[in-house]
């Protein structure tokens, strides 16, 4: 029985075949690189110092380390928010431009049309008793009939 037949005969589980493939390829890669494997227990000193072997887990960190981490997280969050804001602004500017506007134009309060034509006609406040078709709103220059009527104390309010 050659090696591959033997292998397929023994490694029936996919997980085991996968692990065998992992090991085989690792061996080949290391051989290709001309690398020497470092066995557990043979690590250089710098690697086994207590500081180097500690994974950055919060449970094992001192208060100072946690505070430092907190500052770094806060700083990173601010930077991220600024970057997101910048990206959102650029996207909004692009969308506005596609509709022929600048972002400022869209965000500015709507401009009110204050022209004379758009103003509602004021309702009449005074009427000429001698000619009811003549009215005056009370704004602007007094009409002649109003002046005459007020002089004669005949104005109807």
């Amino acid at each position, binding site marked *: 029985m050659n090696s591959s037949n*033997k292998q397929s005969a023994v490694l029936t589980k996919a997980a085991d075949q996968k692990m065998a493939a992992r090991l085989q390829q690792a061996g080949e890669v290391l051989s290709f*690189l001309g690398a020497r494997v470092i066995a557990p227990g043979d690590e250089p000193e710098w690697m086994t110092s207590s500081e180097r072997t500690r994974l*950055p887990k919060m449970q094992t960190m001192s208060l100072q380390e946690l505070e430092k981490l907190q500052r770094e997280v806060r700083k990173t969050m601010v930077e991220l928010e600024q970057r997101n804001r910048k990206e959102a602004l650029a996207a909004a500017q692009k969308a506005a431009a596609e509709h022929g506007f600048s972002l400022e134009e869209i965000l500015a309060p709507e401009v009110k049309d204050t022209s004379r034509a758009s103003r509602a006609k004021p309702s009449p406040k005074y009427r000429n008793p001698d000619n009811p078709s003549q009215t005056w709103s009370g704004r602007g220059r007094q009409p002649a009939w109003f002046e005459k009527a007020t002089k004669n104390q005949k104005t109807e309010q």
Partner: protein
Amino acid sequence: MSEFEGNPVKVVAQRTEVADRNFSDWRVSAERQDAIARQLKEVPRSVDDIEDGNVRLREVEDGFEVAFVLAVTDEKFIVLIIGYDRKGEMEASMSYLKRAAMDALPPPAKTLLEGRKRKDEL
């Protein structure tokens, strides 16, 4: 810059094609892969690692672990990631291979699994 290639420091993280496929199968993002490589480079040996032969297993996030090998060349120190899978899967397979299928393995795989011989075995 990716943590896997072109890093100017002497400790480098590399991965085999199989490990690359494992990362893809589990849809591990490039950022997450870089974070794993960075952690391995910063802490190549942890007291929390499971050591089986020359293979080391480290839980890198809840429920998942990487299998890796430490090696050295004249120029650099290498952390070679060889697999990524659910926690316990690789350890169980290695245990089975050691127990029942050692002879079926090709020599390079065998060497990695056997690890350093104890004094009483020499």
